[in-house]
């Protein structure tokens, strides 16, 4: 896996179910993944690629998504699960492009499902669409008023919307706001309520995740993200990229000149 991550090994794409679980930080993505794993294993082989941010200063990362996965302590299930933490490294999105290769490799090795847990993502963070073929957006209570549900962005790409922490005050209002907003959409995704800590809704979510329909309207958006990611890759993989960053920060190299050097 490290060989793929470091770009030393090329992987051909493999068809299969790749589900991204995305949403704002602290909304309960890791705990939901744990709940899903408890229900889908050992009957399915499930891989989790958990992405956490790389420090833009040091290039290091603290990868802590594993801590939430209590399912790994269950010996009857742990053998059906593979969990790999991934740092975003130089990529700008919530998923580095190498995740596509990692997911393909896992699918080619008999995994039934690859779950990508993204970095806690904001409203316009849609890069996961370039890699995953299904997207679950997790929302939670107390995340702003009804206007938030009307805004364009990530929610429009969701194949399923999960409102987590449904036991907490305000969750029902979020469900209502989202429902009202989505009634104006032609192929609205389903919305379900979960409470990862109490276990509510997790059976339903786990069942749905294996049979999610793809929204037709999001196809163009996926293609767009794939194109953007491929283009960004050319930039990041440019051997001069890091050296040019150094010159910009230390020697005052101007942007136009940096772009010219990159295009040489």
């Amino acid at each position, binding site marked *: *896996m490290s060989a793929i991550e470091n770009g030393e090994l090329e992987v051909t794409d493999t068809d299969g179910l790749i589900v991204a679980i995305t949403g704002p930080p602290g909304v309960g993505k890791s705990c939901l993944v744990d709940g899903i794993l408890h229900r889908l294993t050992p009957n399915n082989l499930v891989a989790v690629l958990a992405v956490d941010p790389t420090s833009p200063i040091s*290039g*290091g990362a*603290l*990868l802590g998504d594993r801590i939430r996965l209590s399912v*790994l302590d269950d010996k009857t299930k*742990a053998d059906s699960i593979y969990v790999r933490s991934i740092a975003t490294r130089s990529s700008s999105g919530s998923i580095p492009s190498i995740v596509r290769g990692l997911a393909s490799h896992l699918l080619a090795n008999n995994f039934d499902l690859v779950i990508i847990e993204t970095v806690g993502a904001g409203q316009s963070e849609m890069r996961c669409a370039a890699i995953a073929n299904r997207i679950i957006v997790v929302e939670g209570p107390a995340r702003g008023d009804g206007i938030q549900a009307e805004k364009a962005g990530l929610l429009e790409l969701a194949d399923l919307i999960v409102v987590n922490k449904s036991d907490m005050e305000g969750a029902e209002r979020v469900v209502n706001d989202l429902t009202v907003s989505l009634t104006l959409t032609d192929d609205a995704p389903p919305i379900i309520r979960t409470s990862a800590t109490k276990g509510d809704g997790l059976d339903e979510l786990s069942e749905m995740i294996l049979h999610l329909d793809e929204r037709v309207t999001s196809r163009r958006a996926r293609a767009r993200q794939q194109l953007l990611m491929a283009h960004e890759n050319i930039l990041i993989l440019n051997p001069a990229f890091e050296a040019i960053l150094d010159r910009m920060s230390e020697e005052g190299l101007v942007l136009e000149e940096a772009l010219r050097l990159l295009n040489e």
Partner: protein
Amino acid sequence: MGERQRIVIAKPGLDGHDRGAKVVARALRDGGHEVIYTGLRRTPDQIIRTVLDEDARFVGLSSLSGAHSHLFPKVCELLREAGLGDVVVFGGGIIPESDRPPLFAAGVRAIFGPGTPSSEILEFVNFASERDCGVGSEDDWHWGE
């Protein structure tokens, strides 16, 4: 700065204090490494599983409970059994001088006690990454000898 390493920081055994482990994890992160933190009260088996899944080259064990003389060699032994002999093991916590020689003999390559500057741990990682001193190697070197 040396090459970026993937490092598991683990808390084996029944020990609820992880301030030190978190400080070390943070220092390694700020040193440009990718650190996977396991959380508290892990068994040696769980730690080996994490190292395997995460392709880690280093594993740092933190113990303040006094059980290091049992747990650290156990982790070294299981790593070798799992075919992970290239993984470098280091330790930290409250570990008396007199307990250290047997740990080094078991394959632990460094012990960092309280007050160790984080720069020293980073130096160790950079140095050890250049040297064939995984837990399965014949090398009997340890840091600070």
